[in-house]
């Protein structure tokens, strides 16, 4: 396994945009240093030769969890919608989603 290079400011700016976070210049500087330090610490893991070791995503994995296909009451619609920032006609309302004016 080859070790990745050290985390850069551009990497952090890129993942911030993927994660829908806006960072100020100061935050970018601060987080780049802090995250690089954590990843440096993780180099003990990244540098191990673990070929042939199966990955574990779940320590107590249970599979094919089924339940009877019965009609049951769901959550109360009004109670759910009452928590939304904006609602119209019993739907969640969001700002426009395309690049053009509506």
């Amino acid at each position: 396994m080859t070790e990745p290079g050290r985390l850069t400011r551009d990497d952090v700016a890129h993942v911030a945009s993927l994660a829908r976070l806006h960072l100020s210049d100061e935050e970018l500087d601060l987080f780049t240093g802090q995250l690089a330090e954590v990843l440096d610490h993780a180099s003990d893991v990244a540098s191990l030769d673990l070929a042939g070791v199966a990955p574990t995503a779940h320590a107590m994995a249970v599979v094919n969890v089924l339940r009877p296909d019965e009609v049951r009451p769901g959550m109360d619609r009004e109670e759910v919608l009452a928590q939304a920032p904006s609602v119209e006609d019993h739907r969640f309302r969001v700002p426009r989603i395309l690049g053009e004016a509506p």
Partner: protein
Amino acid sequence: MTTRSPAAEQAAMVRAGEWSAVDVLEQHLAAIEAGDEAIHAFNLVTADEARAQARAVDRKVADGGDPGLLAGVPVALKDNLCTRGVPTTCSSRILEGWKPPYDATVVTRLAEAGALLVGKTNMDEFAMGSSTETSAFGPTRNPHDTGRVPGGSSGGSAAAVAAGFAPLALGSDTGGSIRQPAALCGVVGMKPTYGTVSRYGLVAFASSLDQIGPFATSVADAALLFDVIGGHDPLDSTSLNRPTPRVLSVIDDGVDGLTVGVLTEFLDGAAPDVADRVHQAAEALAAAGARVEEVSVPEVTLGLSAYYLIAPGEASSNLARYDGVRYGLRVDAEDTVAMNTATRSAGFGDEVKRRIMLGTYVLSAGYVDAYYNQALRVRTKIIDGFAAAYRHCDVLLGPTAPTTAFALGAKTGDPLTMYLSDVCTIPSNLAGHPAISIPFGAGDDGLPVGVQLLGPALSEGTVLKVAAALEAAAPLLAPPAPAPGPAEGVAT
């Protein structure tokens, strides 16, 4: 051996009609009123709701009905457990004011058992932290010394029990978030086997690691609370569909014939005063009849690195749901992506942002093999390492945290140093195993030391049995002052 079980005794008196649930509740509400300004264990005290629950318990007792195992016992809930119609914030601005439209399964089970739900406790934001200082609503303080942290992330629940605000509390433990604050606050805290307690209604942080568990002032009370909240739940597809160990009945069985392994890797990084207490605990177990030996599980030293790749990876996915659309904060902007970004940037604190970015990075193309998938292979190695130790040991013993409670602000500027607080607790989460922290005397600074017992999957009965023996031998620890004065120096 006689076990101390204050919550069970309280419930027994309420059930017998010797003490009304309303009186029990008012005593605790008065303690909260007098003491919580200095501690800030609670984000919200639900006095009115708890009073209604107390009256219902007393009515049931008067009518000759069964009010439940926890009749009239106040229980504090970590603020990441959903309570229908009652704000659930995860100590984050992004969920401030949110009222869940459903109860967590553990909340339903507590209510059915007659517990009085007294409030929602402060925590590190989204359970990400080891000191309760990343809360958006200000830190919780350690009842033993208000200049120190209570640990985290379930610091509010640990402090509430330590301060006598409630005899029982629930927390969640993803990398030590029950056990480490229990150790720093001098109370009992257990992370059960993954899948034994339903996660339905626990706001997700890292779904393969998160587990709900009890805080209590005694091992017997922790066992009682685990018995009430545990068991299969069809609403959580990771819930184990098999009989949950019923543990309260076995904890007094003693440790004769059991083998306890003292985990050398955990002692290596511990402060000398903490290590001394672990050795003393080992001697106490040997005196009680257990076979005690040193054990090495070298793989656990990789746990911290693996955890800080896996948990942020899962968190970055779980926290994608906070988009300003269906609940919680929205910061308006001209289009939806800009609204999502503005909402998340304003609603999440720095530690949550760090973990989301770290997780996004280790899952991104080009890095997922080097980091995330590699960490999953280390997880396998850790599980194998534990399995080898458990071939000849019934339980393992070590410190819960490397040090006693540290000062507020001591580690907030250096995330990696803060992460190192979890070095002894993380391996059990990666393996899905049960582990418990028990108060065992004090360090050189007079603050509580917690020792940790670890066992293989579904060994809660054995772990609690050994814990009860340790509790019986534990050096006395001075309780915190009942109503500490306001702390100085650090703004809340």
